[in-house]
């Protein structure tokens, strides 16, 4: 096997150890628990054979490149600059471990410090960490972090209000991560028109944290959210989940009082990649630093007074603090965050704005086209949407998806998967690459479906 340099040299090495067989190496495993039969697995394959199988299997998938696609729901069919993967997969980055030895890890440490800076600038908060697993775990750990900071003074102990527009898969992650800390998740209500319900905000007074998303999971932006920090006050954390690209044109939550901002970083750096590896963004205000989860890089100096970087605040982390750690996170998504950093630095400020504008333009065009179809109504008419919008169809959304799939169009997400009550609603998502002909295919497909189902 080409992966093991000592294959065929076993005897030479066993002789040094005074052993006869490879099996002798395992003498400390009692016979009663030994496996005595070969593993029932296939024959070893050569690289060529593996490549052929991988190409055949993955080649059988239908990709988002193959057809017009309006499926987003938090993951983006983006175009990642070619330089990103080429640079990030340089062996020195790709095959390094967590930079426990800063003297030989300055490259990744500096890149992550620069990443922290760009994320901090993007969301408008002073500190960002080196990444969480995804947007959902970032949201969940933002909540546990906020409770640690605010619970002592909170009037509603252990209570967190989470927006009812939080998609169910994220809510499920939040519940798993919070149940052990005895956190009670209450629902933050919204009005019929999608705006946050101010009486529900009033109910949240004195709790540990409020979690909202901007845009919400139906792509709608709510400008009344900008007023809620004033209402909930300093003793309750405002946690905001964002669409990272939208911040090229939309006011960052840090500037309207958010204490912690989380979100999916995937749009910067990597394709949707079947849902992982992606990375979660996590940024916060100064008072949360010592309770925040995850790795963080700080600037320092070496013994010659030269600038140097190192992991810092590790006394929060599991390898030092064990069961009293702020989180169990160890491996994170550094390499994908590096891809994100390279993508962000290639874009620059104006490139970011242009990317956001492209998505905004495609959102407008698609929304206009689809809402003009007789029989289709916008779920949030009159609101500003970014990337996604929901429409109500005359029949089940699942049927529309099946019909359009046969026409070769991925029309979006059946919202009935998230909420049974929305099974007639379709979530349509665009990206920077949505073309006029994509929109036309969706328009024609949905029109035809409505026509044949009259």
């Amino acid at each position, binding site marked *: 096997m080409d992966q093991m340099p000592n294959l065929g040299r076993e005897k030479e090495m066993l002789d040094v150890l005074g052993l006869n067989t490879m099996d002798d190496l395992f003498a400390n495993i009692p016979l009663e628990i030994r496996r005595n039969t070969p593993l029932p697995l296939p024959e070893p394959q050569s690289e060529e054979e593996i490549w052929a199988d991988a190409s055949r299997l993955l080649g059988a998938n239908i990709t988002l490149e193959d057809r017009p696609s309006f499926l987003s729901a938090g993951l983006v069919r983006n175009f990642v600059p070619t330089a990103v993967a080429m640079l990030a997969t340089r062996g020195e980055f790709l095959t*390094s471990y967590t930079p426990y030895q800063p003297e030989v890890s300055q490259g990744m440490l500096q890149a992550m410090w620069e990443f922290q800076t760009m994320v901090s600038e993007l969301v408008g908060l002073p500190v960002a960490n080196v990444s969480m697993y995804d947007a959902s775990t970032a949201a969940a750990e933002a909540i546990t972090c906020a409770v640690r900071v605010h619970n002592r003074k909170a009037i509603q102990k252990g209570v967190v209000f989470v927006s009812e527009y939080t998609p169910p898969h994220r809510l499920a992650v939040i519940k798993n991560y919070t149940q052990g800390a005895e956190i009670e998740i209450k629902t933050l209500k919204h009005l019929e028109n999608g705006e946050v319900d101010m009486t529900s905000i009033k109910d949240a007074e004195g709790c540990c944290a409020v979690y909202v998303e901007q845009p919400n999971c139906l792509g709608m932006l709510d400008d009344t959210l900008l007023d809620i920090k004033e209402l909930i006050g300093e003793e309750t954390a405002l946690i905001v989940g964002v669409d990272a690209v939208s911040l090229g044109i939309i006011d960052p939550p840090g500037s309207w009082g958010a204490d912690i901002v989380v979100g999916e970083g995937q749009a910067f750096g990597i394709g*949707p990649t079947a849902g992982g590896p992606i990375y979660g963004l996590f940024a916060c205000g100064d008072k949360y630093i010592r309770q925040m989860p995850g790795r963080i890089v700080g600037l320092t100096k070496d013994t010659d007074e030269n600038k140097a970087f190192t992991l810092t605040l590790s006394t929060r982390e599991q390898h030092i603090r064990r069961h009293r750690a702020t989180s169990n996170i160890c491996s994170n998504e550094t390499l994908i965050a590096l891809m994100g950093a390279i993508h962000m630095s290639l874009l620059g400020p104006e490139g970011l704005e242009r990317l956001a504008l492209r998505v905004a333009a495609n959102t407008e065009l698609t929304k206009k086209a689809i809402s003009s179809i007789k029989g289709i109504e916008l779920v949030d008419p009159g609101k500003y949407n970014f990337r996604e919008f929901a429409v109500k169809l005359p029949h089940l959304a699942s049927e529309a998806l099946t019909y359009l799939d046969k026409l070769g169009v991925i029309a979006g997400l059946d919202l009935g998967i998230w909420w049974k009550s929305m099974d007639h609603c379709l979530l349509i998502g665009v990206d920077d690459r949505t073309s006029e002909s994509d929109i036309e295919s969706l328009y024609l497909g949905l029109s035809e479906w409505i026509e044949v189902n009259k």
Partner: protein
Amino acid sequence: MSDLFAFNGAKGAGWAQPKPSIEREILISLIPKKLRRKSLPKWPRASEPEIVRHYTWLSNRNFGIDNGFYPLGSCTMKHNPRVNEKIVQLPGMDKIHPLQPEHHVQGLLAIYFEMQEMLATCSGMDQVTLQPVAGAQGEFTAIRCIQEYHRQQGQGHRSKVIVPDSAHGTNPASASMCGYDIIEIPSGDDGRLDLEALKSAVGDDTAAMMITNPSTLGVFEHQIAEAAEIVHSAGGQMYYDGANFNAIIGKTDPGRMGFDAVHYNLHKTFSQPHGGGGPGSGPIGVKSHLSQFLPTPLAGRRNQVEADPKGVDDGYWYFWQDVGENSIGKVQQWNGNAGAVVRSWAFYRRYGKELEKMSEHAVLNSNYLRHRIMNPDPEIAKKIHVMPLNGAPADLVMHEFTLSLTPLKELHGVTGKDVAKRLLDYGVMAPTLYFPTIVPECLMIEPTETESKEVLDKFASDLHKILSEDPDLVTSAPHTTDVKRVDEVWAARNLILKHPGNESGQ
């Protein structure tokens, strides 16, 4: 020094992209005023050549397995086969949305299914989920399943999780996040699990025991079946931390040892590159009584029927299988780190039924290196000030071993950290330092199966050289790295966590 934020070229410099399909001014006017961004983030303005050069410069200041020996104990830093990187860039992987209908992703589902089956086979478990995206998340997920199991059995009062004092820090941290109290039991004098200590720790409040085997000392816990018996008779569940799974594949498995749940580190055992700290992938396997609690969905399959669309020509139809109402739900929002799963699938296909050889060579290399270190040539031995002590008191270790540098510290004031830093000057990564904490001045060394005998010989001889060097040279190391010894205390005191911006900046 290349400073990213010193790049401040013309506005709009950098990567070219098409214009928006509607004029900028119109688009901005459509955004409600209150919601508009007032000023752009202070990101660099640089062209592609500048960015390529910056990150290449950074990569030159970073050390990976590709640069040299990386004997970081418990992290299993083995070679990452390059074909795997090419495979995950295939559009059928990179351009897939996890919510696409099943008939779009038959190939991916087939790989998921095969990986679930392979991991279950190698570990003696009944059902595997690939959803957890890191080892720590796997631990958390499995303990959540155990927690729900106890609740269902009317045993919700079980509030304690037992871990040995040699456990990885993630074990107590994960259990604690689930709401459990932690009981840490001391290891015996030989560094092994102390059954008497375990007996006195278990009781009606025991929810589970978390343990890795071989232990972090690289020692196989030969009384593991007895330990499982003790925990089970008290009504607790046994959890296997699979960080050291690389040592035992094909030789034994957690199922045989009596475990109920296990996590795998695909980024260790199956070579997903560590990427400077992630991504990882931490699937878990469980015995059948726990499978109803697993996160949802799993990859499932049935025989293909005529009405099915085209599949992958293996006679099966693959689908996402909902785990049901007792499932803990989700731990990651999609279906795990698919990229890590596919890389690991490609890695395992290279070995197939000979995966056992991988573990054999990992253990051979570990024992060989340990022997070389502990038995220097007589000529060299004369020059060494003080030999380290064997941290792992066993004739044979598994995939890793520990050394204690206590004698060196006592006699010459040279610490484990000093030796670790000095090793960097010899062009290798330092071993894991000061872990497990039960071994004083510990160096924990794991060579993996992908290092040649020559590399191991050289490492032993370099270590011996360091033990013969002037202590001042060692305590002031490293000398040849990009920066000298880094002041971690200053970093924590001053907390400069972002770039302050440049004078000339935006």
